[in-house]
């Protein structure tokens, strides 16, 4: 593995020509409290369109917080966050909702499907908030279920599905609004190894279609499937490496 210098010194072909989809500059976040917790410390990060990135780190290293900030689910204190060239700071919930709906698809560890909606309705839900007609969005939902191999399961409710199936449905839901970025927070955390592979393959496939994919994980095997691995430790970026599978294979 080759050590890469971080943002600013990224190779030309990565940061400039393709364009920085995500750009963090000296970003800090502290959780207030009796003992304030400084979770993100001077993070500088640039992720370009189409990249497949894993964020790794021990629990408490700030990786989930980083992902939440990237997904505009959480805010930050100081520094700058540019998403597709737009400064993300102090957004109203309404603005944030618009950006999320337009730009970002989420995949969560706990799936976060809505329990009283069937698979198709769950997948179609983001389009409801975009104002797409019911017929159109259900048709699209079926297409995306097809993509994740669960078309025949469209009428099942989440509690009738296995963990792997739920996660695939969550991925279909994340994809249906055609986001530029997929943010996955421990997507395989609740899955066994076989279904983990299915889900990771699905994410790789998503990335192959040109969607920037960022996966937070603590599983080495999952990270190995990505093309860039960022290690966080105590709120700092400890390392940021390009992951070349062939190299890994050679070193074995």
């Amino acid at each position, binding site marked *: 593995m080759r050590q890469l210098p971080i943002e600013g010194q990224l190779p030309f072909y990565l940061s400039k020509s393709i364009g920085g989809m995500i750009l963090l500059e000296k970003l800090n976040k502290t959780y207030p409290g009796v003992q304030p917790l400084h979770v993100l410390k001077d993070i500088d990060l640039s992720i370009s369109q189409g990249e497949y990135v894993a964020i790794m780190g021990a629990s408490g290293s700030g990786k989930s917080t980083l992902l939440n900030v990237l997904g505009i689910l959480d805010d930050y204190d100081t520094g700058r966050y540019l998403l597709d060239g737009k400064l993300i700071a102090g957004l109203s919930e309404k603005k944030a909702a618009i950006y999320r709906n337009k730009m970002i698809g989420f995949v969560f560890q706990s799936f976060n499907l809505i329990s009283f909606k069937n698979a198709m309705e769950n997948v179609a839900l983001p389009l409801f*908030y975009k104002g797409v007609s019911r017929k159109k969005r259900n048709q699209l939902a079926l297409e995306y279920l097809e993509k994740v191999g669960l078309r025949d399961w469209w009428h099942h409710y989440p509690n009738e599905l296995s963990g792997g199936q739920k996660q695939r449905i969550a991925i279909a839901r994340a994809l249906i609004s055609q986001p530029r970025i997929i943010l996955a927070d421990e997507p395989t955390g609740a899955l066994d190894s076989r279904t983990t592979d299915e889900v990771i393959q699905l994410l790789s496939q998503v990335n192959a279609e040109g969607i920037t994919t960022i996966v937070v994980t603590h599983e080495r095997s999952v990270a190995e499937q990505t093309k860039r691995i960022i290690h966080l430790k105590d709120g700092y970026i400890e390392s940021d490496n390009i992951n070349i599978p062939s190299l890994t294979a050679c070193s074995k």
Partner: protein
Amino acid sequence: MKFFEFDTIREIFSTMRQSKLRTFLTGFSVAWGIFMLIVLLGSGKGLQNGVSSNFSNYAVNMVNVWPRRTNMPYKGFKAYRRLRFRDQDMEMLKNHFPQIDKASGIISLYGNTVSYGKEYGNYGINGVMPDYKDIRMLSIEAGNGRFINNIDMSEERKVVVINQRVADNLFRGEEPLGKYVQIGGIAFMVVGLETKTSNDENGYCYIPHSTAQTIYNRRGYTDEFYFTVTGMDSPEANEAFTLALRKTLARSLIVHPDDTAAIGVWNMAENYVQTMRIFSTIQLFVFIIGLCTLVAGIVGVGNIMVITVKERTREFGIKKAIGASPSNILNSILIESVIITGVFGYIGMVLGIGTLELLSLIMENATGTGGDGPKVFLNPSVDLNIVLVATGILIASGLLAGYFPARRAVNIKPVEAMRAE
């Protein structure tokens, strides 16, 4: 996204289906509030209608005066003298009391045989003056002739106004107007048909007061007086009037001023005003109880909305993460609240009105007052405006109760919301 859209409604119904119990409980407290309000107000109204309908055989401002025996010796007269009212007593009272509006003497005779052809019956014969019609609120509809008039009085005509019962019994569907009936062997021409007491068991005949005085040997005298009075709204004013009336009449008839039992006075207004006062108090009382029930309903709705919003915080977080704006979520909560309160409010209203109808039916049968007997419960009804206002208040309070917790939940950052369980 528009506020009101079919898809939004569908979305809301799917969440309502998801939590049937909660929907039912919210709805129930609304329906119950409206139901109780309607039943209470309606019963109050029914009670009032029932009792006041008992007054409706008379003008509510009617005063009836009749002579009795004296109880004390006075100015050379012995005790236990039977009093009689004279024509001039009525004139004197009319001049003395400007409150007196309409006045009529009455000569009442019972058990006179009235016949027409082969048909005959025993009916009450009343010798009355033209004002009697208005005092007793008799009704002669167009085409049914006329009541006793002043010319009948001055010419002592032998004319008679019969009521429906007499017409039914004697004429058997034949046209009575212009026909002659025999009363105590004297022919009277029927000039009017009175229909107000058409349900009444009793038959009545009205003849001119002057004619009755002549025929029945009461020239210059009358049996009782009937008046209507105006301009007295309080029980106190009516009491004072009754007292003054007694005094004046006692002086005229040479009766001891303290001998109150010698003259009978029935002042309808005195009773009516008092009864109506009681009823307006009851109405107010009932209204306050209804309002309290409504408040309980409002608190119920508020409570359940608070819990609902708390329960669904996680769901809201997920929805926001996948692109729902705060207003999407807020709107859906508010519309849900309005639909529940509206629909169940309506159900409560319908049930309440149904219950009132049932109550009315049962009460009518139970008291056996299908006819003209005294009523205690009649036409329970509620002012529709009150119902609409009450429903409006409930919906508005559902909105408010949903709005504040919902706004707070909606403004929680999605990460935190999703963490909630």
